[in-house]
């Protein structure tokens, strides 16, 4: 333990720092920390509009579980996540490795693949809605008919909705994520490759024993960030499909949106929010535990 320093000395030493932080701390409390805690409290009460009325324990949670859209939303959200791991996780890695091999005009490619990432989410969602139009007006169906293939239902086919939405997410995010991997690839010491060549390693062996292990940690971090972000998917089902067809694409965040801003049932919206947070915390913790065991 340190020796006791007089209070006024400590105050004079620390006060300026706290004053500098104070405005930001007020903002963080109002916009981030308090709402996080408040959503827990909110979920345990009944409310009239925004006024909390009565403590009801876990009643809101029980009601939410009974809601006909709840389990479809949970199931779909896991589907979104699984599809995004199947489609969205490997694309940026492969793209990064390929672009990093380009000898001329590499920076041009890097700028080009990032471009979809600057399209604002709402514009991107509407744009893909047009591309996937099920009638003969959709550009994809126009292209298919030029090849002599029938018009496809795209998003209105319940089996295709989620994979297609994930494809649009990948379209938007893959380039930006690939840049992260490219930065990682450039950090690999070229001498490692030289040494491997001396040992007679071909190109595939270099990829397998040098490239992949060197971006492994980065990939692990990005994997969990991707899961967290896809789990909160909202704009796409909200605008492109409105959760349909027949609840085939409704997401758990969309349920929060419906409870809160269509039914004005804030406590139930809070309950669903808390459930989402708990699932994400559990996923992250399980994931960290798995990784630790692997490292040992």
């Amino acid at each position, binding site marked *: 333990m340190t020796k006791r320093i007089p209070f006024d000395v400590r105050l004079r030493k620390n006060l300026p720092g706290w004053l500098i932080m104070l405005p*930001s701390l007020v*903002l963080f409390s109002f916009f981030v920390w308090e709402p*996080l805690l408040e959503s827990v409290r909110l979920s345990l009460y009944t409310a009239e509009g925004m006024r909390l009325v009565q403590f009801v324990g876990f009643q809101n949670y029980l009601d939410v579980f009974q809601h006909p859209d709840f389990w479809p939303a949970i199931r779909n959200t896991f589907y979104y996540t699984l599809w995004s791991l199947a489609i969205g996780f490997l694309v940026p890695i492969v793209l990064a490795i390929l672009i990093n091999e380009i000898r001329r005009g590499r920076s041009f490619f890097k700028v080009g693949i990032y471009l979809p990432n600057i399209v604002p989410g709402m514009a991107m969602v509407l744009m893909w809605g047009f591309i996937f139009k099920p009638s003969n007006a959709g550009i994809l169906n126009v292209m298919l008919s030029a090849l002599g293939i029938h018009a496809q239902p795209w998003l209105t086919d319940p089996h295709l909705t989620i994979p297609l939405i994930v494809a649009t997410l990948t379209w938007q995010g893959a380039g930006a994520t690939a840049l992260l991997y490219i930065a990682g690839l450039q950090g690999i010491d070229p001498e490692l490759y030289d040494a491997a060549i001396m040992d007679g390693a071909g190109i595939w062996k270099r990829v397998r024993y040098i490239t992949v292990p060197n971006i492994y940690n*980065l990939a692990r971090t990005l994997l969990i960030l991707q899961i967290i972000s896809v789990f909160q998917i909202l704009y796409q089902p909200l605008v492109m499909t409105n959760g349909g067809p027949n609840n085939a694409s409704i997401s758990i965040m969309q349920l929060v949106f419906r409870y809160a801003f269509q039914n004005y049932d*804030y406590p139930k919206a809070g309950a669903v929010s808390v459930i989402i947070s708990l699932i994400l915390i559990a996923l992250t913790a399980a994931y960290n535990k798995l990784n630790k065991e692997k490292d040992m």
Partner: protein
Amino acid sequence: MANKNAGYGIIRDLDLKSPGVRSGYRLVFAICVVALLVGIAPMVWVVVSGFKTIKEFVISVNVIPESFDISKYTGTWISLKFAKYYRNSLVSVIGSVGCAVIFNGLLGYALSKVKPSGWRIVYALVMAGLLIPATTSIVPLFINITRVHLNGSFVPLWLSIGANAFYVVLFKTFFDSLPNSLVEAAKIDGCTDFRVFRSIALPLSRSIMMVVAIYAINAAWSDFLLPYLVLNQSGLETVMVRLFQFRNGKTSDIDILRAIVFVIIPPTVLFLFFQKQITQVTAQSGIKG
């Protein structure tokens, strides 16, 4: 222009002597070109289709419109009153940039260079905000904003971006890279903490302020959920809120298509000017913007 890193990937100059590797390299190049086209084609299609008439858009199978008459775009601009929504978005963006730089910058500076006792707790709380998804607390946040009667105003949008954990971390990392000796020397000369911040830290941190500003412009321009909750039906709707209102179905498809173009233009221009800063920070931060 030859890249100075050429030949430092997996395929080396020596490998290219083999014809198999050479055609493999051509395949790699071709795949990258295809990826680039897939990335850009949808945006090009929207811009080009915006030049079609409604009839053309519904019936014609040609991708290229009959004429490239810019008056079709200006017509939509006027009939949808987009100048108004642009103005609203601009006000939202300007205030957001100011708040993003000032509040996150101050906190990042204090956590890096001043470090009053208890800073570790604050830092841990900030990092927790980075990991726990913010969208799940949108309902209580909306209630908070309504309770202090800030609905229908830009103020909550400006201030909310002043509490952004990602920007705080960017600032803190930057200030951590400035040598402590600079600050200590100034303090020995009798400078107060505020003086050190104003005369030493501030002038040195132009580059990071620039980066956060660019990020904040994009974030504020693209943000939808909070602006929708706070500004819907207030007459102050931003362009994104307007885009969402198209869902009600009173606007023709071709007008919506042109509106999408209006919305994409500002971030594209910004990106073309600052592509280096934007792509570099993306690569360093590990979090996409």
